[in-house]
């Protein structure tokens, strides 16, 4: 006979609401309130999964987050969740549950044969064996055999996961007796409280263990306390796991929803944290202690009292402490035959009626194949059993305390690590703090709230108080058979011994070599047994061996929950042009350029041909393009001129109001950081027109220097980039088109020469007209309030029609500027390019006043003659453009070496041949020289020329 549902009992289930789901295709009956695990147990299912490495049959071990074995894929109407713990997921009618790492079913797994070779597969077997010729040859098949659930790669979130930021006075983690006492105390003192518990029902051990608080039965006290907290407006979150504790008391919570909706991520910033996270029962080490139907004794009691499930009829309980006697007695009372095997001499004092106690005895081995059938004791006798319960003591759940960098202290009395020296702002209470009796737990709860506790007295246990009396029962080296330490990672005592023998005696090395305590389980049940064994082998104390680092998350958290709304187009939002809709209507094909979504080219034709056509027509008559992305950072104030002098490589204070000057900004290491035009509107007002993709960074630098060097009252900086649209007219007939716009500004070349700026109006709005050119042709940049730009753009197109005006996308603009040798920072420069590498050496030698990066221009590196310098690369007519990124190469002492690389390369429709820009070693002095340019193994020849290939005299700027 095996596990079964009793006809009555089970505080968590509702027998009037039956449900059913499938497990590996088999129908499983249950009730509302069942977890998948409790329903599986009630249905008699022993094997619920296969182990990670050896494909051993494994059954349900625990009743909560500690469950190492029962990982399942849960398929429902809202999707599929891999690697869910069957013990923490509520059973829902109609779901499809599948075991993981088993095929076709957990019961009949075709890889089960692996276990027979287990002796050949010790820790690190794969690392050592599959070294030659290459691990990657073997990896796919090994990975397919090992591992857990499979991610559904087609999964799409149906709705965005909520993320909630919350502040409160006290956050209490764990709604057991200690946590409830803490929450109640803080609430009574008038503080705002958040109480979270990872179970569906609060109460912790009081939900399945006997207890009486202030004369009230435990569960009733839990319900009353929770009701009072809720009615007082406090936040009580169930099915919510505090999975991470971060700097400055930030606690991350994962809240699950029974309606199948996506999990909610909470970021809670309390003034005080109370950790009442309880403790987890440990396995008992004996051979084959991983067989299905070997469970935690506390879990068995929980299944009995919460779900009305009797885990066996013929039960052996192995223990080293008092806590196993309540389960033993309760199961005997429920009709099971129960034998307690207690390793202590005085075992049995609290045994209930019908419980047989064998004192001073331990289990050596369990017998059975797909479920335990009996045990062998150390005196050589055997006991038949259809279920073995184990209680190897309790391991406090110190994960969050350790994440807060709290130090642990070893307690011989509890045979466990407990929180040591207090951490600021964090209190610990209940079992995690080493409390055993209910009264101690309740008192520690109230005390843990620190300054937030109420003055009224803490609740007290009024029934029989629990005792522990634990003695050590650690795994021993050289034990016969396979004693499992870590169920989830398939680590045995022999693996730990092997690691120690190979000198992996640091606990962190042991972990990585054997995988002990890794994966989603994080060693919740296994860590301490593993540490104790390592301590024994290496002749150290457990405290000396120490623990591995506890890292978040405590339990797995869905990525979708961590991501929240920051996905798809919200992941890295692009900046958009005010006239995007208009450009789209005109056939603009959009691409992202440096964070901006801009038209790459217009029209429905083939991209390459459209781009060539735009670039060719731009030189013939008039081109219109949207340059709104250009930076427009205003620098205003009494020391503005001095400020721009310091910021720019070029002297800017000599610029006359109403004029513009092109210049570089350097970093302090002398590298060209940005280029662009500075406009001086009046004595104390400038506009920094920086690169489109660089606006935020330039603005930040200006602010930094303003605050660091000039002070708040000397200069004011305002980034007005998004406030204006900048629409540009370029080409030989540009002036005629701008004149037709009727802006009221004098446009003759004497009034508005190249690199000058004028004010005008369009349809009642102020506009700024700047003669600045990025094409090499006469150009007018017209800036207008962004929300009034549409009418101006329409008018520009209308007036342009008579001149066969062409709309330029960014791609053709790139051709035009490359023909002129105009650079794009970060494309035609790299992280070593200094201004004198770009042919602008004057300020370096002539400027007397200080500027950013100045001293770096004269370092040993800055003075080198063999620096990469900007050049043009000429090819013969009919040749294809060079590949951007192709390297100039030369042979020196028999070895091929790079002498620089191609930075820009295009076919020029106007010149009828390719144009290219490159950074080439000593390039400025090598004009006329033909060099080899290599790309993907193909070597071509190119001639070094001046960067400007089109209209080198610049006459078209004024034409």
């Amino acid at each position: 006979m095996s596990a079964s549902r009793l006809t009555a009992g089970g505080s968590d289930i509702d027998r009037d609401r039956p449900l059913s789901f499938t497990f590996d295709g088999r129908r499983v009956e249950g009730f509302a309130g069942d977890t998948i695990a409790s329903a599986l147990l009630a249905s008699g299912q022993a094997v619920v999964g296969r182990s990670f490495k050896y494909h051993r049959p494994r059954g349900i071990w625990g009743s909560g987050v500690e469950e190492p074995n029962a990982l399942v894929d849960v398929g429902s109407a809202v999707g599929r969740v891999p690697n869910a713990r069957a013990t923490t997921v509520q059973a829902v009618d109609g779901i499809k549950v599948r075991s993981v790492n088993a095929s076709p079913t957990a019961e009949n797994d075709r890889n089960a044969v692996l276990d027979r070779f287990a002796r050949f597969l010790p820790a690190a077997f794969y690392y050592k064996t599959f070294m030659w010729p290459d691990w990657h040859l073997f990896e796919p098949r090994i990975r397919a055999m090992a591992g857990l659930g499979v991610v559904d790669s087609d999964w799409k979130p149906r709705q965005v996961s909520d993320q909630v930021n919350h502040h409160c006075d006290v956050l209490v983690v764990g709604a057991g007796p200690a946590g409830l006492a803490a929450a109640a105390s803080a609430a009574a003192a008038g503080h705002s409280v958040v109480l979270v518990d990872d179970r569906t029902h609060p109460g912790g051990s009081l939900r399945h263990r006997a207890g009486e608080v202030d004369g009230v039965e435990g569960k009733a006290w839990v319900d009353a306390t929770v009701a009072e907290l809720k009615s007082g407006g406090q936040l009580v979150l169930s099915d919510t796991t505090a999975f991470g504790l971060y700097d400055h008391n930030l606690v991350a919570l994962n809240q699950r929803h029974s309606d199948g909706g996506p999990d909610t991520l909470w970021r809670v910033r309390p003034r005080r944290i109370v950790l009442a996270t309880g403790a987890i029962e440990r396995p008992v080490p004996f051979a084959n202690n991983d067989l299905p139907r070997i469970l935690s004794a506390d879990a068995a009691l929980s299944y009995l009292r919460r779900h009305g499930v009797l885990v066996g009829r013929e039960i052996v309980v192995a223990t080293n402490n008092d806590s196993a006697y309540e389960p033993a007695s309760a199961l005997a009372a429920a009709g099971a035959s129960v034998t307690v095997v207690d390793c202590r001499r005085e075992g049995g004092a609290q045994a209930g009626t019908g419980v047989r106690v064998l004192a001073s005895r331990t289990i050596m081995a369990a017998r059975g194949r797909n479920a335990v059938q009996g045990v062998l004791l150390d005196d050589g006798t055997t006991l038949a059993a259809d279920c073995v319960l184990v209680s190897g003591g309790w391991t406090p759940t110190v994960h969050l305390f350790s994440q807060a960098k709290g130090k642990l202290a070893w307690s011989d009395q509890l045979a466990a690590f407990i929180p040591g020296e207090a951490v600021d702002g964090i209190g610990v209470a209940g079992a995690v703090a080493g409390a055993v009796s209910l009264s101690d737990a309740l008192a520690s709860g109230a005390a843990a709230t620190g300054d937030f506790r109420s003055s009224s007295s803490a609740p007290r246990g009024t029934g029989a108080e629990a005792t522990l009396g634990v003695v050590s029962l650690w795994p021993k080296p050289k034990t016969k058979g396979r004693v499992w330490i870590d169920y989830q990672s398939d680590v045995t005592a022999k693996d730990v011994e092997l690691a120690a023998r190979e000198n992996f005696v640091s606990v962190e090395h042991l972990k990585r070599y054997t995988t002990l305590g890794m994966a989603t389980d994080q060693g919740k049940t296994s860590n301490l047994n593993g540490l104790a064994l390592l301590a024994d082998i290496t002749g150290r104390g457990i405290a000396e061996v120490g623990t591995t680092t506890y890292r978040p998350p405590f339990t797995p958290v869905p990525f979708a929950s961590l991501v929240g709304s920051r996905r798809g187009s919200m992941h890295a939002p692009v900046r958009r042009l005010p006239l995007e809709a208009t450009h789209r209507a005109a056939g603009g094909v959009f691409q992202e350029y440096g964070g901006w979504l801009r038209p790459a080219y217009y029209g429905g034709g083939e991209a390459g041909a459209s781009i060539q056509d735009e670039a060719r027509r731009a030189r013939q008559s008039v081109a219109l393009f949207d340059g709104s992305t250009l930076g427009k950072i205003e620098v205003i104030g009494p020391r503005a001129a001095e400020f721009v002098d310091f910021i720019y490589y070029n002297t800017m204070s000599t610029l006359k109001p109403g004029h513009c000057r092109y210049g570089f900004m350097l970093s302090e290491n002398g590298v060209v950081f940005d280029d662009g035009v500075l406009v001086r509107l009046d004595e104390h007002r400038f506009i920094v027109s920086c690169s489109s993709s660089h606006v935020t960074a330039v603005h930040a630098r200006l602010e930094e220097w303003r605050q660091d060097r000039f002070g708040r009252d000397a200069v004011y900086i305002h980034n007005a980039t998004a406030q204006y649209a900048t629409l540009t007219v370029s080409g030989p007939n540009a002036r005629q088109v701008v004149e037709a716009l009727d802006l009221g500004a004098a446009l003759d070349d004497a009034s508005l020469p190249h690199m000058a700026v004028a004010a005008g109006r369009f349809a009642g709005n102020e506009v700024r007209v700047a003669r600045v050119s990025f094409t090499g042709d006469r150009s007018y940049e017209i800036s207008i309030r962004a929300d009034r730009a549409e009418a101006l753009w329409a008018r520009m197109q209308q007036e342009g029609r008579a001149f066969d005006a062409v709309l330029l996308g960014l791609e053709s603009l790139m051709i035009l500027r490359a023909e002129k040798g105009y650079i794009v920072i970060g494309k035609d420069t790299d992280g070593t390019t200094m201004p004198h590498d770009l042919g602008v050496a004057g300020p370096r030698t002539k400027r007397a006043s200080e500027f950013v990066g100045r001293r770096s221009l004269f370092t040993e590196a800055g003075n080198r003659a063999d620096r990469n310098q900007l050049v043009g690369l000429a090819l013969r007519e009919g040749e294809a453009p060079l590949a951007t990124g192709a390297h100039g190469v030369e042979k020196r002492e028999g070895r091929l070496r790079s002498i620089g690389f191609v930075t820009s390369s295009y076919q020029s429709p106007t010149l009828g041949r390719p144009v290219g820009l490159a950074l080439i070693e000593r390039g400025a002095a090598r004009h006329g020289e033909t060099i080899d340019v290599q790309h993907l193994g193909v070597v071509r020849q190119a001639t070094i020329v001046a960067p400007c290939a089109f209209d080198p005299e610049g006459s078209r700027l004024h034409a």
Partner: protein
Amino acid sequence: MQLFPCPFCGPREESEFHYGGEAGNLRPDGSEVTAERWAGYLHMRDNPKGPTREIWVHLTCGEFFAMSRDSVNHKVSGSSVLGEAEHGA
């Protein structure tokens, strides 16, 4: 996630801030500065273990300020508006 006290806005989460550098790393002006001094300004950092004084910028308000914190336990002991000491002028 740490909480930093912006002297202008109050406590805000660390993702709103950007590290500006060690406080007191004064800029030596002029082309006569020795290579060692300039390299020290550009590259050499104390990277102290324990109490530090640093320059941070609160990106959402744009203000730079000095903050004292501990690089080991991440405790922040205070922050202040940039004064003459940080300007070095």
